[in-house]
C-alpha cells in the first residue's frame, strides 16, 4: 500500500522542483513580465523605431486613451511600422464583458486615429510578449528591423486560434 504513494510523492517532488528551477532560470527573463501575472505593472509605451520620430508620441497617446477606460487596468502599446499593437488586461469582475470591451476599444481607436491600423488583444501571452519587446527596444538590444520582425511574430501569434 505504501509503494504507490512513494512513487506518487516522487513524481510530484520531481514536478515541483522542476517547475521551481525552470521558473528561476530560463523562460522569461525580465522581472516585469514575470510579476505581470499577479499585479499591475503599467508598462511604458514603445515604438520599434526607438525614441526618434513621432512613433513614441503616438504610442503614448494611445496608451493614455485606453488607460482612461474604467474596465482596464494595464495597457501595453507597441508602435510598429504599419500596425500598433495594443495589449490590455481587464479587471477581474469585468471579464464577463470581454467582447463588449474589445468592441469599445476598437471603436474608440478607430474614431481617434482613423489613419492607423490597430491589433488589439486582451490575451495575457500577447501582453507579456509586448513587455519583452518593449524592454528589448528600450535597452537598445534590438535593431529596428529585428524589433519589427518580433512585432510581426507577436501579431501572428495573436491571430492563431488553434
Amino acid at each position, binding site marked *: 500500500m505504501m509503494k*504507490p*504513494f512513494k*512513487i*506518487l510523492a516522487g*513524481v510530484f517532488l520531481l514536478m515541483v522542483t522542476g*517547475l521551481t528551477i*525552470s521558473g528561476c532560470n*530560463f*523562460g*522569461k527573463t525580465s522581472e516585469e513580465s514575470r510579476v505581470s*501575472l499577479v499585479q499591475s505593472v503599467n508598462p511604458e509605451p514603445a515604438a520599434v523605431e526607438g525614441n526618434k520620430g513621432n512613433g513614441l508620441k503616438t504610442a503614448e497617446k494611445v496608451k493614455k486613451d485606453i488607460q482612461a477606460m474604467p474596465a482596464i487596468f494595464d495597457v501595453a502599446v507597441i508602435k510598429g511600422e504599419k500596425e500598433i499593437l495594443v495589449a490590455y488586461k481587464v479587471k477581474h469582475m469585468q471579464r464577463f464583458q470581454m467582447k463588449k470591451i474589445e468592441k469599445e476599444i476598437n471603436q474608440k481607436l478607430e474614431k481617434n486615429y482613423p489613419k492607423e491600423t490597430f491589433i488589439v488583444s486582451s*490575451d*495575457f*501571452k*500577447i501582453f*507579456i510578449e509586448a513587455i519583452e519587446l518593449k524592454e528589448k527596444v528600450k535597452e537598445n538590444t534590438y535593431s529596428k528591423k529585428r524589433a519589427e520582425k518580433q512585432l510581426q511574430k507577436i501579431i501572428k*501569434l*495573436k491571430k*492563431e*486560434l*488553434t
Partner: protein
Amino acid sequence: MGNKKMTPAQEQYKKLEQKHETKRPVLKNCLKAFLVGGIICVIGQAITYFYIYFFHFTEQTAGNPTVATMIFISMLLTGFGVYDHIGQFAGAGSAVPVTGFGNSVISAAIEHRTEGFVLGVGGNMFKLAGSVILFGVFSAFVVALIKTLLTMWGVL
C-alpha cells in the same frame, strides 16, 4: 414505479426501509466535490500559465496542451491507484473535470486486462469514455452546423 398503487405489504416495507436507510450527507458530499473539483481546476490553471510562460501558447491556444496534460496526469494517478481514493472521497468533483475521462479510460483498461490485449484492453478501454467521445463529437457537429447556418443567413 412511483405512480403504481402499492399493496399494504409493500407500503409497510417501504416505511421499514426508510427507517433503516442511512441518510446521505448530501451537503457534505457537495462541499467535498466542490473543493476537490476546484483544486483540480486550480492545477489546470497553473498548467495553462506554465504553457503561456514557457512555450509559445496564447490564452486562446494553451487550452489544448493543458487538457492533454491533465488527462495524462490522471491516467498516471489511476494506474498508481491513487485516483480511486480521490474519487471515493470527492465523487463528482473528480469525475466531472476532464481528469475523470482519463480515469475512466485507464480503469476500464486495467479491469479487462486479464481478457487479453485485443479483446480485453482494446475492446473495453473506451467502454465508458466512448460515450463521452461520441456525444462530444456529435454535439460539436450540431453546434457547428447551427453556427454555419446562422452565419450563412447573416445573423451572426
